């Protein structure tokens, strides 16, 4: 190791130099506030890019029924094996099948977006912008169909942002 000189071992000049930088930024922030990078989260919602992969949602047809046809291609492509679908016969004989149950274990999900990519009918999206999932129990991270469709409010869950309209 290189030996420090006497002045360097005093540390004082370096401390003063550091304080100078700090003081400069302090006054810049006080005088020109709109250039600050600090975000007032969670008081103010943060900016989320349109392509951001947030919590999933299931989309609906015009008549309000889920678009999902229970083809299980999302479950097939999911690397975390966290999508569980139970398909059932539809009451309308012209419709082949529908998801009687559709759950995503958001704790296992790695938010890769492959499910969205795999879906042949745009039934699952990750465009909610919801990134701050929180719950008190593990079970509450297993999102049922109703929650993904937006019919139910997540029990015991405080979310970073209201669901996209």
């Amino acid at each position, binding site marked *: 190791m290189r030996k420090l000189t006497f002045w360097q071992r005093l540390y004082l000049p370096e401390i003063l130099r550091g304080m100078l930088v700090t003081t400069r930024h302090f006054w810049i922030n006080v005088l020109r506030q709109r250039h600050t990078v600090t975000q007032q989260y969670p008081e103010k919602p943060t900016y989320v890019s349109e392509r951001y992969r947030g919590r999933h949602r299931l989309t609906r047809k015009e008549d309000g029924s889920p678009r999902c046809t229970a083809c299980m291609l999302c479950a097939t492509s999911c690397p975390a094996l966290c999508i569980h679908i139970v398909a*059932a016969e539809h009451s309308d*004989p012209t419709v082949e099948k529908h998801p009687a149950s559709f759950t995503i274990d958001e704790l296992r999900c790695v938010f890769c977006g492959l499910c969205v990519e795999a879906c042949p009918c745009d039934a699952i999206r990750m465009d909610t912008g919801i990134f701050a999932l929180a719950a008190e129990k593990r079970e509450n991270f297993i999102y049922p169909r109703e929650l993904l469709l937006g019919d139910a409010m997540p029990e015991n869950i405080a979310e970073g942002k209201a669901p996209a309209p």
Partner: protein
Amino acid sequence: MAKKLTIDGKEITARDDATIIQAAHEAGIVIPHYCYHPKLSVAGNCRMCLIELEGRPKLEISCNTPVADDMVVHTNSPKVIEGRRGVLEFLLINHPLDCPICDQAGECGLQDYYMSYGLYQSRFQEEKVHGRKVVDFGPDVVFDSERCILCTRCVRFCDEVTHTNELGIFERGDTAQIATFPGKQLDNPYAGNTVDICPVGALTSKDFRFKIRVWFLQETSSVCPGCARGCNINVHHHDGRVYRLKPRRNDAVNDTWMCDAGRFGYKSLHENRLLEAAARNDAGGLTPATMQDALARAADLLRDRNPATIAVLAAPQGTNEDCYLLAKLTAEMLPGCRITMIAGEPGDEDDFLLRADKNPNSRGAQDMGLPALASPDDVAQLAAAIDTGKIEMLVAVDVDLKAIFGTETFARLTAKLQALIVQGSAMRPGSEAAQVLLPSAAYVERHGTFTNFQGRIQRFNAAFAPPGASQPAWRIYRRLANLLGADWNYPNHEAVWADIADTVPGYGIDYAAIGDQGCLISSVDSPPSGRG
């Protein structure tokens, strides 16, 4: 006389009456096809099996062209591939292409061949002809006319195999469709096979529909335990659960078919399973116990008794390995005990596959040294012996005690009996009266062999591990015998088989040599082909 020809540059000797597709398949060259089926008559309507025959100007269908000497056949020339592409284009003109919601996706002939020979860019601009969807054909079969390619395999099956003639082609042109004849339902005892042979998703099984996508399934070769025929099957399972059974080809036993009763037999595998061992505590209740403790209890109950007061009640449901060790256990450790083999109610029988004996191993059980099937008189005698106190203890193996004795008699007998040991894969009526419950594995969870009514030894394989504490029955008998003082060393089922091969007449064959198609008991004079 055999015919010599060349297929794809390979010199092949074929049977005189073979068609080109048969000769090619026997030589390991697969020619794409839809309507051809090895066990049905030739229809020649799908045109998928086109091949090029040197010296002929146009492509020929290989399923209906007999072989001849010096033929030169090309199955993969550019002209053939062009032809197949054209055939596929026509087949798909009115096809709905609803693969994502079609149950056949993943095992569909159209998908598979289109991946290899498809046109990919559709040239079809017009409106597709729409057909009937989700048409109820019968108790298990649903039909979708848009997906049907009119190969008539299903029609020929009902005409030629079951002779029940439920299906036909109605109308013509692009409105032609398969339907059941008025007032008829596709409800013959073999109807499920139409779903298997339909090369596309036009016929689907109500039972299997939407349960799981087929690409999640694993396949294990097995043998149906539904009756004495022992049809060869594949078990399709995922994650320790059986989703369906499919027939596996064995020309000596079941050709390529199986009956519906056998097909749906898998359901009982997941019902009422006995998962943990249990023993009766001092207060008189059944409490869960480890296998070790339960076996020790059972050994204690057996040890302190004159073997002549012990009766064993078994059904020929066990494998040869189970039966062999049960016979050995009773002969060596409990000499003089009374063994009664229960056949259960006889069921339907026909001149095709179904046998009245609903046990898979009645033949094998006797060969292994267990007694012949009991008559109702034998059961009455056993009940009387319990009543008079001559029999003090009962060991029940895979039987429905209440059905055998009748509910009231059984209640009286349990009061008389000093001990009851029940071994089985499921909780059956009467099991709850046991002092000791020993859970055994079902056939899909273990390796083993059955001997069918023809005397054909057939091997089946474990699809997944036995659930809970259950174990193959032979292992339970081995542990019990060792607790009773024997010194048996059978580390696995093959060791038990090796012992059988050494001692049982006719069974002297290597376990591996039994193979996937089974083999006939060597010393027994059995009819060489299936329909005995």
